[in-house]
């Protein structure tokens, strides 16, 4: 949320929301620009595929347009977007059971870097994708929102519709699993297996 807050001032966001509510598409585009990183980035981590993440983002922004009147305060928008994004990812998972993910989340290009740096980044991305993929859906959502997006436990609980204690437990389990996976991945024996 801090990332979003840093993008634009609260006044500008409030003005953009008011104009978008009045049907101004340019203002709505501005709102999308302010929050697209939040929505697409979260969806990408939760689905693991850029194609699915784009579909989710489209759906989330269309829902936002239809529900602009329900999101009263501009500072409540990021929480609303996180919640709708997570729900849309759950819905997608129900509609389209998980298949073997392609390497599309690794399409993030590190242009202009030397091969060594690129390799390291590609490796990191691969580890991130694989470690998230092996987590159960709820633990993955909790870890992504809490540790990668930087939300507080309370905000995560609100976004996921569960209690703070549940979120703490889910995050703790997810961290342990990810840590185990990373250790195995980087140990010489684990590398050979993967």
């Amino acid at each position: 949320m801090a990332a979003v807050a840093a993008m634009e001032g609260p006044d500008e966001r409030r003005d953009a929301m008011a104009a978008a509510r009045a049907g101004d598409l340019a203002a709505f585009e501005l709102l999308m620009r302010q929050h697209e990183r939040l929505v697409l980035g979260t969806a990408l981590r939760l689905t693991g595929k850029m194609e699915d993440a784009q579909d989710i983002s489209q759906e989330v922004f269309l829902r936002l347009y239809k529900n602009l009147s329900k999101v009263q305060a501009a500072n409540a928008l990021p929480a609303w977007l996180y919640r709708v994004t997570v729900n849309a990812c759950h819905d997608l998972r129900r509609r389209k059971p998980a298949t073997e993910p392609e390497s599309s989340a690794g399409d993030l290009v590190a242009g202009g870097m030397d091969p060594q740096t690129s390799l390291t980044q590609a490796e990191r991305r691969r580890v991130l994708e694989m470690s998230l993929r092996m987590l159960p859906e709820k633990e993955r959502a909790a870890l992504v929102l809490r540790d990668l997006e930087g939300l507080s436990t309370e905000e995560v609980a609100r976004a996921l519709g569960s209690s703070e204690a549940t979120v703490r437990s889910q995050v703790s389990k997810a961290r342990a699993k990810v840590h185990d996976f990373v250790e195995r991945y980087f140990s010489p024996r684990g590398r050979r297996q993967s």
Partner: protein
Amino acid sequence: MNSDREESGFEETLEMLREAHREAIPEAHFAAVRARVLSQLAAERRPWWRGFWPYGFAAAAVAAMLLAAFWPKHLAQRQTVGQALPPANRTVAQAGHDGRPPGLQSASVSRVIGRRKRLPHNAAYRVVGPLVPEHLVVKLVTNDPNVVIYWITGE
């Protein structure tokens, strides 16, 4: 000691994942999403009748063709019948003056009436209705100017 090492291991792992997550997503992906959303919103906001203009245009064209096919013919026939059939009494009288036998004139009248019967619309009948004489008056002019014979027939 072990716990500290584990804690720092957790932190390292999380930091690595965060770094990977922070990597920039290419702008093209965002632009694609924006374009899809905006085009869908623009399509939904378009007034409903904007999508129907081809049908409206086609309906107007069909209506114009129907008018062109039927409307002028009615007018033409109304004029023809109107001009061809002056009031019956006067026609017969003039026939006598022309010296033509009255049968010829009545044949001409019946030809016109016969043509009227083939008209497709009731409107035509309404127009020519009054032209059917209620009483037929035939004036025969003889060689003797003092002798004029009138035949008056009912319907």
